[in-house]
């Protein structure tokens, strides 16, 4: 991934994506479709809001007692025979992975989706050190073959068209030229990846939940790739961000009910695997607990709740800016609304444009299964960035930020409806925030702070989910 310029990076990158009207529109539609599926699932459960409340409360409690829970997790996991490692940063994490792989003379490792290993830039590190890493989630594999990074945390290849996959597979796998049938292409991938699963000497996975009470880890996939990657070879390395802890196994009742419904509109993923220790003699389970900036965020009251994130991607699917600017425009491992909080926390200067890649419509906070106040935190970030002098080109930034998404009518597809939406949202986008000269000079009536959100909520409750009424 190339490092992009600070400050104006998002608007610049986004306008490049939006240049291609047809593609931006297609991307927008694809994500909205997933948002609609999510709504259907949420509505099918009368207790949806109760579940969100519980999830949020469990996470708040966990973060308040995180050190204790990490120690408990280590104790229990060790009791089951897992080896627990600790890594304060990405470099330490990568070294630990490499040392385990070296010990077992691993040449090929199958890796399932893990945003944490992306965050640590594990692949290039291992490749430099002579280890072949194969990303086995189909979307991630496509992205890896294209020498790109994922553009979405749940749907890594959402920005790529089937024609492009066809070309790529023709090149790399020798599929028929011009083939675009997803079934045919996925079958070709299956053939090759099953060879990898059979040949690899170790598997690396991310972790969705780590249970303090039992020392177990839970991994959710639809493809079954994580399990194939760690059930055949004798070594399983699991990388866990320290915020992934939950106190009790029974808490999974809450989180697994929310996760897939929020992510892709499924009632649960095809596979939800619970690992407690290595289960065969001679096998090893290594669990690496990684901080890499998380304890800093924990110390910041305004942003602490961002650690609740269970990486479902719902805030991305619903975000009008994300949908029309593409995940790569954020130049970050975690893009979209939550990424726009997490990345500036790590590097305020480099990612100062991200809190502005937002219309403050609040849709992200409304869909978030763990009730992170995402849009409020984004606003807080703006204040903070200004206070610390990270925003210099105010005017330029505001104009660009507005234009890249809302200037192109063709992006709106449903022209009438969406144009009204754009009109409604644009002034707010302009006046919000202390940085905008407009907002200061004009004596605009103080917009009721929650009006747009309230209205959106009403609208989304009263309209059929298939109708595209608001972000």
């Amino acid at each position, binding site marked *: 991934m190339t490092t992009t310029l600070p400050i104006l990076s998002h608007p610049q990158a986004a306008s490049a994506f939006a240049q291609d009207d047809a593609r931006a529109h297609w991307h927008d539609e694809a994500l909205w479709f997933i948002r609609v599926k999510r709504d259907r699932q949420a509505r099918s459960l009368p207790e949806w809001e109760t579940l969100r409340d519980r999830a949020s409360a469990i996470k708040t409690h966990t973060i308040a007692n995180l*050190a204790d829970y990490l120690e408990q997790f280590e104790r229990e996991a060790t009791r089951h025979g897992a080896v627990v490692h*600790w890594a304060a940063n990405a470099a330490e994490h990568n070294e630990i992975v490499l040392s385990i792989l070296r010990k077992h003379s691993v040449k090929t490792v199958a890796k399932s989706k893990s945003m944490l290993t992306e965050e640590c830039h594990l692949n290039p590190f291992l490749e430099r050190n002579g280890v072949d890493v194969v990303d086995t989630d189909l979307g991630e594999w496509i992205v890896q073959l294209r020498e790109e990074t994922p553009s979405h945390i749940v749907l890594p290849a959402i920005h790529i068209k089937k024609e492009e996959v066809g070309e790529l597979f023709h090149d790399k796998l020798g599929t028929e030229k011009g083939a675009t049938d997803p079934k045919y292409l996925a079958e070709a991938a299956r053939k090759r990846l099953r060879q990898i699963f059979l040949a690899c000497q170790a598997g690396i996975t991310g972790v969705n939940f780590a249970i303090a009470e039992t020392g177990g880890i839970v991994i959710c996939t639809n493809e079954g790739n994580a399990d194939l990657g760690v059930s055949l070879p004798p070594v399983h390395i699991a990388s866990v961000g320290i915020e992934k802890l939950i106190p009790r196994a029974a808490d999974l009742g809450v989180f697994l*009910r929310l996760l897939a419904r929020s992510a892709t509109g499924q009632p*649960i993923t095809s596979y939800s*695997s619970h690992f407690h220790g290595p289960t065969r003699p001679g096998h090893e389970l290594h669990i690496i607990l990684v901080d890499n900036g998380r304890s800093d965020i924990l110390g910041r009251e305004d942003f602490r709740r961002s650690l609740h994130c269970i990486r479902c991607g719902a805030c991305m699917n619903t975000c009008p800016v994300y949908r029309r600017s593409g995940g790569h425009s954020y130049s970050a491992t975690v893009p979209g609304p939550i990424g726009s909080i997490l990345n500036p926390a790590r590097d305020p200067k480099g990612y100062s444009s991200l809190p502005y890649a937002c219309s403050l419509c609040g849709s992200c906070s409304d869909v978030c299964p763990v009730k992170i106040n995402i849009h409020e935190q984004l606003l807080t970030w703006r204040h903070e960035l200004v206070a610390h002098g990270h925003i210099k080109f105010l005017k330029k930034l505001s104009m660009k930020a507005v234009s890249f998404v809302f200037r192109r009518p063709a992006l709106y597809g449903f022209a009438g409806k969406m144009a009204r939406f754009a009109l409604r949202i644009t002034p707010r986008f302009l006046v919000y925030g202390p940085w905008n000269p407009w907002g200061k000079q004009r004596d605009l009536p103080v917009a009721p702070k929650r009006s747009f959100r309230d209205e959106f909520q009403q609208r989304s409750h009263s309209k059929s989910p298939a109708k595209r009424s608001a972000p």
Partner: protein
Amino acid sequence: MTTSTSPARARILAAIRQHAVPQAELPNLAGDWITFPDPVAKFSEVLTFVGGKPLVATDRAELEAQIRDLAVMQSPEGAALPKVICTVEGLPFGNVDFAKVLDPHHLEDIEVAILPGEFAVAENGAVWVTDRVVPHRAIYFIAQHVVLVVRRADLLDNLHQAYDRLCGSEHAFDQPGYGLFVSGPSKTADIEQSLVIGAHGPRSMTVLLLDA
């Protein structure tokens, strides 16, 4: 290297503990969670929605007949019988002795795996399976087709009931082990969001509810 004395461990724990985070209570998990007047119908509906195939048998004879009739159990004309592993007691279908498979890599050509499920969940079409009843947990993923047999009496309404059952007096996670919720076949939508069944793992997943 003992991990418990690693310098990173001390640094991380200290970095966390230096922040005074306000206490918050851990909520209890009791709730007015969804139940269904007809859990079998709900389970069947959801399993179908996620790409699985639900069947109900009222006795063992019917169970046997249903499995025998499955398309995946038929051998194409002139071809050899499909390789079948069956660990459900009393069913006559296995032609590979699972206990004799020493290396999970050798399961690669297994066509059908007929295995017992511990319980099922109506709200999400999931079945709980473990490595206690199989020598290699890879079987759940490497077989081309998976057939799970669950007793009707072991069908629960929702996931909370499932964890209550797992975390009861005999806590399922007290011992090292592996457990899995399976809901449907292996699938992907990574190419333009088109659903493809049979990503890397099983191309079909059938659940037989035995109502006896």
